[in-house]
């Protein structure tokens, strides 16, 4: 579903180091196994995040999925601070980075409060040497984030978890608009934002995951 939207050119230029998509999904599955019990890992891998869990297990799956994305975003903005950025871009990297770190903390706390086990931060790598590359990748991540939350949130059963996810989703959308504005692009290109399945999102971010 709308997989083509992920075929953004910069994803194809990303340097991949020793990490296949299958390995990434397996890693996710093992992390999930820690949460759900090892017996669930087999079908988890087989269906490549088929997203058919329900109830608290399903909520934990979504939360750990969101946590993985937020880890990736937070680290992305941290690395951006090492670049030679204009004051405006530096301010964006700082503000957005703070937001993503707060999202990481909130998701970890929520997962713990549900007696789940938060996934660990992935080791990541970003092809980002200048401001232009930073802003372009930032847009990719934020847009992916918006679609990821929009796609995953309807699967959440707990009203509290759904409310929290919505609070984060709105910030991701504001980030996407801010980054687009900084790039001189239309900030809200469509009347309705797209949604992506979890497996599609993980595939989209896989090139940035080293291990």
């Amino acid at each position: 579903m709308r997989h083509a939207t992920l075929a953004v050119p910069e994803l194809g230029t990303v340097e991949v180091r020793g990490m296949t998509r299958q390995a990434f999904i397996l890693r996710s599955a093992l992390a999930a196994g820690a949460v759900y019990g090892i017996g669930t890992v087999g079908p988890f891998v087989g269906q490549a995040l088929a997203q058919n869990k329900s109830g608290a297990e399903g909520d934990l799956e979504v939360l750990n999925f969101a946590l993985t994305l937020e880890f990736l975003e937070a680290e992305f903005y941290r690395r951006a601070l090492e670049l030679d950025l204009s004051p405006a871009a530096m301010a964006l990297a700082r503000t957005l980075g703070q937001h993503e770190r707060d999202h990481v903390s909130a998701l970890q706390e929520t997962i713990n409060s549900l007696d789940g086990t938060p996934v660990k931060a992935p080791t990541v790598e970003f092809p980002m040497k200048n401001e232009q590359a930073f802003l372009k990748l930032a847009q990719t991540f934020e847009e992916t984030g918006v679609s990821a939350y929009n796609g995953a949130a309807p699967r959440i059963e707990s009203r509290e978890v759904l409310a929290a996810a919505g609070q984060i989703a709105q910030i991701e959308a504001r980030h996407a608009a801010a980054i687009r504005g900084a790039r001189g692009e239309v900030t809200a290109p469509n009347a309705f934002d797209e949604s992506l399945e979890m497996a599609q999102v993980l595939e989209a971010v896989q090139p940035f995951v080293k291990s």
Partner: protein
Amino acid sequence: MNEPTSETRGPEGPRAVEELARDPGSRKRFLKMVGGASAASAFSIFVAACNSDDGGGEDRSSGDSGGRSGESPGSGAASTRQPNADPREGTSDLEILNYALKLEQLEAAFYAAVIDSGLIKGSQLAMVKKFGSHERQHRETLETTISNLGGTPVEPAKVRFPIGTAKGVLTLAATIENAGAGAYLGQANRIRDKEVLAAALSIHSVEARHAATLNELVGRPFAPQGSFAAPLTMEEVLTSVQTFIVT
């Protein structure tokens, strides 16, 4: 707390008593998790913005056709749907959809009035037209959804906005869009149907984009509430937009 849910309250008491407001335990846990961003503080900002003199000029009226109506979102429509089984739930999807429709009608009428005013030009006019187009599409989608669910879309209210200066108009636009985003967020976890929820979420994030864009345009932070957006209750939103409704 155990206030009975009434389906027959008048305009002075919107029936949508928020679950979170009725459930201090849930609210406390929720607020703790999100670091204290509260709907109350967001609402204060919203009201302050509404009451400011940013408009700075004469009122100009603008209005959708149709008389005053829609005080009770979804009235007459909810009966086509099974009563909510969840005792915590006081509002049906149709009521929520009609509430959203009222907001989209208001937003669409606002942008139409802004364009008519001739105050906004150039790239800002292009933006206003684009956002207005989005609100019209939201309105149409909501109307279709309501009809498909067997409900009756509310008639648009006659509205009137303070439109005086370009800066004032853009500030009001920012205020309305931030409230719109908060309004959708406030309903997201009350929607029962997953498809309706998915549709609402796809609108929610677009309202958020509008809000962020307009905030920056008028010199406000694009995410004024920080890392977590604050939801607004139906009652808060309906009370605050009442100022634009011509009675």
